[in-house]
Every structure is written in C-alpha cells, then in structure tokens.
C-alpha cells in the first residue's frame, strides 16, 4: 500500500465514495464524494498529536471494537495516506486538537464533503467482502456468551499489533484460555443464511490454530468442521502440519453451545460423525469462523456501477470460467472478494489480471466493443417518412444511448453507449432499427431452419443470452433431462423478442413457443426485461382472445442458476402438446394462420427480411428433399 501511494501515477483517495458512474469504456465520468476529514490532507504530517490530546474515546472498529480509539484518529496504524480524521459524531468540540496541532493548522472544522468529477478510462472494483454476524444464530450464543468470539476478533486478539499485543485472553476474566474450539462454516454452507462455501475459512482456521499452537504449545485446540477444503497448492501439506502439531479435528457441526454461568466456560455440543456419538466438550473459549458475505452496500454499488449481482449478492462476472475478472460492462473489472469469496493468492491473481485487462484499455488508441449494437435506418425512421420522430426507441433504451435531437431528424444511436439489448429494435413500430448480428432477417432464417421439419411437434424457445440461455446451458451440464423437441433461439435480451418473431413462429406452424428471460431484478440490461415482460403480457392476452390452447405460449423468467426450472418448464410444455390431439393441434394452427399473416403484413418490407426468407425457404426445402430420399 505504501508503495502504491508513492508511485506517482497512482492516486490513492481514501475516505471517498463513488457517487455516480456515467459514460462508457474509455470515457467514464465518475463522481466521487470526498468525505470531510476535517483535517487538511496537505498539511497533516500524521504526527498524531491531535489524537494524544483528544479526550473522547469510542470503540475502535478496526480492532473489532475490542479497543478504544479517539475522536481524532487514523483507522489503523498502517493507514495510507497517514492523515488523521476527526470523527464529528463523537467529537465534543473541545478544540484541544487544534491547540495541539499548533502552527501546522491542519485541522479545519469547517470542511465539508466535496464532490469531484474525474475522467476515467477503466474501473477496477475491489470492494472486498464483509462478515456474517453470528449473533443471529442463537444456538452459538455469540454476543450472549462473552467467551464466544468471531474469527475477526480472534485475529485482533492474536495479533501482536492488536489490543492485547498478541496475548490471547478470554473476554470474561482476561485469563489465557487453555482449551479452544474453532467452529467452521458458521453461517456459510447453510441454506438458512448463506448457502455457499466461503472458500478460505478452512485454511484460515487452520492458520489461526497453528499460530496459536506454535506460540502456546500447551493449549488444546479442536476444530469442528463439516468438510476440510484444502484444494490449493501447499494447503493440504499445511493441514497435515496442523495435525502433526496435535490440533484436533472433529468432524461434526455443533448444534449448540451452552455456558456455565459461573466460570463462563463453554460446552460445545456436537456429534462426532466418525464415532456416530453425541459429544459435549468443555472449552475456555470458542471461535466462530463466520461466513464471508457481500459488503452491506453491495446492492447500492451494483446500481451505481450498473453491474449485476449473482445469486448471493456478489458482483456478477461476464463469464464464470472464461472472463472471471470482467464485468459485463466494458471497461469495468473486478478484483478480489467483491466478485465472490477468495483467499489472498486468488485475490492477488485476480487483481493483477484485472489491472492488465484495464491497462489494455488505457493503452489503446481505439477500443473494440461487442458488435451487437443497434443501428438506425434513417430513411425508415418516422422522422423521415412522416416528419415526426416518435421517440419510442429512445424511451425503450435502458442506457439513454439513443438521441432524438428534433422531430425532423432521425433517431441516432451512440454506439459506444449501446449495450446491444435490442429493446429499441423490437419496439420500433416502423422497423427502422436493427441490431447487428441479431437482425430480423438472421433470426427469421434461424427460426425457419429450426421449424423446417414437423414444426407442430417443436417447441421454439426464445431465451435471453444472460439468464435463460445460461439456464438451458446449466440444464444441459447438470444433466436435467428435457424434451428433445425443444429448439432454442438465443437473443441478447427478452426485450429483443419481437412480437413479429412470435407471430412468424406460429405462422410457420410451431407447436409451442417459450418466451423466457431473466427475473425482473436480474436483467443484465437494467430494465430490458421489463420491456420484454410488458410485451409478453400483451401477447399472452392476445393469444387468449384468439383462443389458442392454454400452454402453447408460455412466458417464464428463468435465471442462469435455474437449470432445473428450464427443464421442468419445457417438459410441462411438452406435456401440453402430448395431451393435445394431433389433428386438433393442426386445425388450430391453420385456424390462427391467417391472423398471423395479417399481423406480419409489413414484415417483408424490413430490409433483408424477404431475401432471408427466400434463402431460408430454399434451405428448408433442400433439407426436406434430402430427408425424403432414402439413404
């Protein structure tokens, strides 16, 4: 950290919050709130005289509230930059600090928060993680029993720079504990709180145990665990060493801790799984290895940065395997535990990787973005044809990437701002916008190919790229069986699922159509799903009016984690088709066809559509001829 601060091209801003992020890759405008320290950064030399004279003491958060700090303070002794801070919530305005500061005149009570705007090329988010508060787990008695502590408290108590100078004492009587229990997975791997594994706690508790044991060979340490997870290099060897040192490992998740009211000793009640017997052991002190959880303001940050969150609340990466440090937004990267619990080596690795990804942007003259952006045909826009831009596209765009300058000038897409959801394309009543790589013509051609053969048996599934497509992927990789009649169509967002596509699918004789996308809050394109959902509701009502058999059109929001749901929904749709009489189904398709054709009347005028239709027709007939010929 000191190194970073000394590097002239690194600007460290502490006590500063990100208020707003605007713009796009290479051209972000970031608004920062530099919170008032009430100490002038350029004058403070970090001597600490203000803290010495300050009469106010409040709990020290850095020391897990095990020690006091003054109202004039630095968060920790290694703070970088070393600038003091006056905590006005605690300050009693005695102004002794001003006196102590003397001629430096670094203290300024009139200072206020300052909003600063900076031009930023790339953003690396490294906001870290927070800790689960075990006091909600009544069975462990944390916050009721003085000698039950958390791993972070243990960290401070066992640290030579900590409040006890590394002398491990127990809170109730300040004696050195002789018998210690560590309980792993407190609040993690627990569906009631956090279902996921916190990744580093096994090693963390072994580390603490080894440290303690090395310093005090006579202490007796037991680690209660469900599974010990030591997958990285050297970890298993470390685990071996802990066993050699005589640290006890008991497999069994304790169900309860009770306390002797007089001695404040603790009794850990668990099953020893290996023995299959319930055991109750007495300890002087118990350490709870609490779960790593997202920062309390992670939700807020996610909306400021406009990046999505995975289940569990961590920031969601672009791709879990291939692009784990990229956010889905170009130019924003993740480092460390903000993206998921990580130990130090992984955090360092990800940090370095994110830095190198970011430097690619900073060192480029030009930056290539995803090509799936929206493009306007100015000659088709209502501004040209009717002299009035309707502005529906601009309203639909979640990113404000479409400019309508005046009613006479066709809409204009700011390519660098466009994220390629396709909402404008599907919404445009004039079919005057298209999305590169997801043009109507391309999508239609795919649909025709998918529905070439026995369309009435097929279920055409529109899936959004970020959620439902992932869900279908997961259904596959998790081996959830679902109907082989499913034909998947990928578009970037449910907002791109044009009503015309659905009409066309039924016109082509599709048995059923699934309209699927992210859950409302999970949309990768902020509000794209809402646009898609509204449209889906309209379609649903319309098909109801047309008396289409219930279940032939289905709208489902399926996240990337819901492979089981994807499979279930498709199987249910298959059942609907199975339960229908084949002739009835054909009759229904024929009955609805004229209506669909009517609705698609304007469609062939869209550039490329008729050509694509002609081409795919040839393709389809070729497929069918090939099929008919006996091998």
């Amino acid at each position, binding site marked *: 950290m000191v190194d970073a601060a000394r590097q002239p091209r690194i600007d460290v801003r502490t006590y500063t919050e990100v208020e707003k992020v605007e713009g796009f890759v290479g051209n972000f405008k970031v608004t920062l709130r530099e919170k008032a320290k009430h100490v002038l950064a350029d004058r403070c030399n970090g001597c600490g005289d203000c803290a010495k004279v300050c009469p106010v003491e409040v709990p020290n958060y850095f020391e897990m509230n095990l020690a006091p700090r003054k109202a004039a303070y630095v968060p920790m002794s290694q703070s970088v930059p070393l600038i003091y801070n006056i905590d006005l919530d605690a300050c009693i305005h005695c102004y002794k600090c001003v006196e102590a500061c003397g001629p430096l005149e670094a203290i300024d009570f009139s200072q206020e928060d300052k909003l600063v705007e900076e031009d930023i090329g790339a953003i690396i988010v490294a906001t870290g993680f927070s800790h689960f508060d075990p006091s909600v787990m009544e*069975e462990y*008695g944390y916050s009721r029993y003085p000698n039950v502590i958390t791993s972070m408290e243990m960290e401070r108590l066992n640290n030579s720079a900590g409040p006890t100078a590394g002398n491990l004492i127990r809170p109730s009587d300040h004696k050195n504990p002789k018998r210690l229990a560590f309980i792993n997975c407190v609040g993690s791997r627990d569906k009631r709180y956090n279902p996921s594994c916190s990744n580093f706690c096994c090693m963390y508790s072994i580390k603490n145990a080894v440290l303690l044991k090395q310093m005090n060979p006579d202490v007796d340490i037991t680690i209660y665990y469900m599974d010990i997870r030591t997958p990285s290099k050297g970890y298993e060897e470390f685990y071996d060493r802990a066993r050699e040192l005589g640290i006890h490992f008991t497999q069994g998740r304790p169900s*309860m*801790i*009770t*306390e*002797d*009211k007089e001695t404040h000793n603790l*009794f850990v009640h668990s099953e020893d799984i290996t023995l299959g017997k319930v055991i*109750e052991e007495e300890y002087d002190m118990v350490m709870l290895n609490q779960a790593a959880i997202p920062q309390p303001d992670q939700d807020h940050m996610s909306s400021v940065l406009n990046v999505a969150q995975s289940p569990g609340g961590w920031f969601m990466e672009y791709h879990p395997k291939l692009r784990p440090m990229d956010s889905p937004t170009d130019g924003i990267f993740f480092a460390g535990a903000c993206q998921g619990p990580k130990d130090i080596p992984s955090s360092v690795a990800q940090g370095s990787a994110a830095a190198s990804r970011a430097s690619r942007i900073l060192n480029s003259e030009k930056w290539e973005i995803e090509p799936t952006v929206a493009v306007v045909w100015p000659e088709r826009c209502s501004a040209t044809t009717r002299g009035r831009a309707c502005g529906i596209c601009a309203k639909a765009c979640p990113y404000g990437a479409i400019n309508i300058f005046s009613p006479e000038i066709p809409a204009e897409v700011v390519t660098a701002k466009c994220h390629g959801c396709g909402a404008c394309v599907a919404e445009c009543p004039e079919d005057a916008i298209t999305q590169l790589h997801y043009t109507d013509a391309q999508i239609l051609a795919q649909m025709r190919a998918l529905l070439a053969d026995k369309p009435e048996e097929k279920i055409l599934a529109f899936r959004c790229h970020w959620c439902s497509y992932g869900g279908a992927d997961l259904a596959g990789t998790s081996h959830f069986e679902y109907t082989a009649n499913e034909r998947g169509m990928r578009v970037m967002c449910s907002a791109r699922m044009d009503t015309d596509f659905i009409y066309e699918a039924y016109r082509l004789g599709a048995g059923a159509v699934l309209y699927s996308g992210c859950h409302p809050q999970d949309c990768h394109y902020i509000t794209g799903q809402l646009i898609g959902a509204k449209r889906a509701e309209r379609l649903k009502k319309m098909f109801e009016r047309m008396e289409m058999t219930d279940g032939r059109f289905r709208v489902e929001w399926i996240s990337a984690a819901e492979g089981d749901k994807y499979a279930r929904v498709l199987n249910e749709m298959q059942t609907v088709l199975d339960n229908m009489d084949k002739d009835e189904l054909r009759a229904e398709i024929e009955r609805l066809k004229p209506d669909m054709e009517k609705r698609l009347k304007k469609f062939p005028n869209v550039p490329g559509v008729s050509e694509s239709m002609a081409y795919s027709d040839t393709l389809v007939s070729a497929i069918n001829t090939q099929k008919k010929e006996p091998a």
Partner: protein
Amino acid sequence: METKPKIALFQCQWCLYSEPDQYWVDHNLPPSIRLMKVSCTGRINTLHILNAIQGGADGVMISGCRPEKCHFKEGNLSALRQHEEFLNLLDYIGYERDRVRFVWLDLQDRGRIQQELADFENKLQELSTANTLATRINAPEGEVHV
C-alpha cells in the same frame, strides 16, 4: 435442625439438555426432593399433583421443555390448560397456588434446574402452612394402597 420443605419434582425426561444437570437430578437430589420422571409434562395428570400435595409434599415442581421445543410436538401444551385451571381452582378454595410451580427449561439453560429448586425451596419456606389440604392417611404396611 431446620427441616427442609418436601418437594415433589416432576421432570420431563427430555427437558435437561446437559448431561451433568440430568446426572445431578438423577443421583444427587437431597432427600427432601423426590424425582418423578415422566415422558412429557403433558403426561402429568392433575391427580398426580393432588396426590403429591395430599401426600404431604410442601411443594410440587414440574420441569419441562419450552412448549415449542416439546419432544412430542407441542404436546406439553395440551395438558397445560388443565394444569393452569387446576391451579386456579386450588387458589379459589384457598390453597396456596405458589406451592405448585412450573419451570420451562430451554435447551441452553445449563444449571438452571439447581437454581430453580433452591429458589422454590426458599419460597416454600416463606409460605404459611395453614391452608394445606388434608393429607392422606398412610397406608398400612403391605396393603395395596397405591
């Protein structure tokens, strides 16, 4: 020598979670306290309580699990209304209802049973003995009277 009040302790066999507590109740109760283990406080009949009182016990203590933690679902609640009303009735006819005490022990109440018994003993010593119900005459040796 001061005589200690006689306490009939009806204990639900599940309510003492910690082994030392159960051991103490099983083996180290003073002679003035008698343990009557039951499978659930819901199993205690008002007749049991009445018999303890009429047998000459100075107090009856019933220790059981908290209702939501009852071993038999919420079974101990089913008899609770009876016991409550029985105490109301005893109070109505002038018997000290404080001589019957319910204690609900939680899983984490290690050592509480000892405290509660000591506390109850003190309380019984404070109470006057004027209104105690008529006691049963002791059965002749050998005759079935129970």
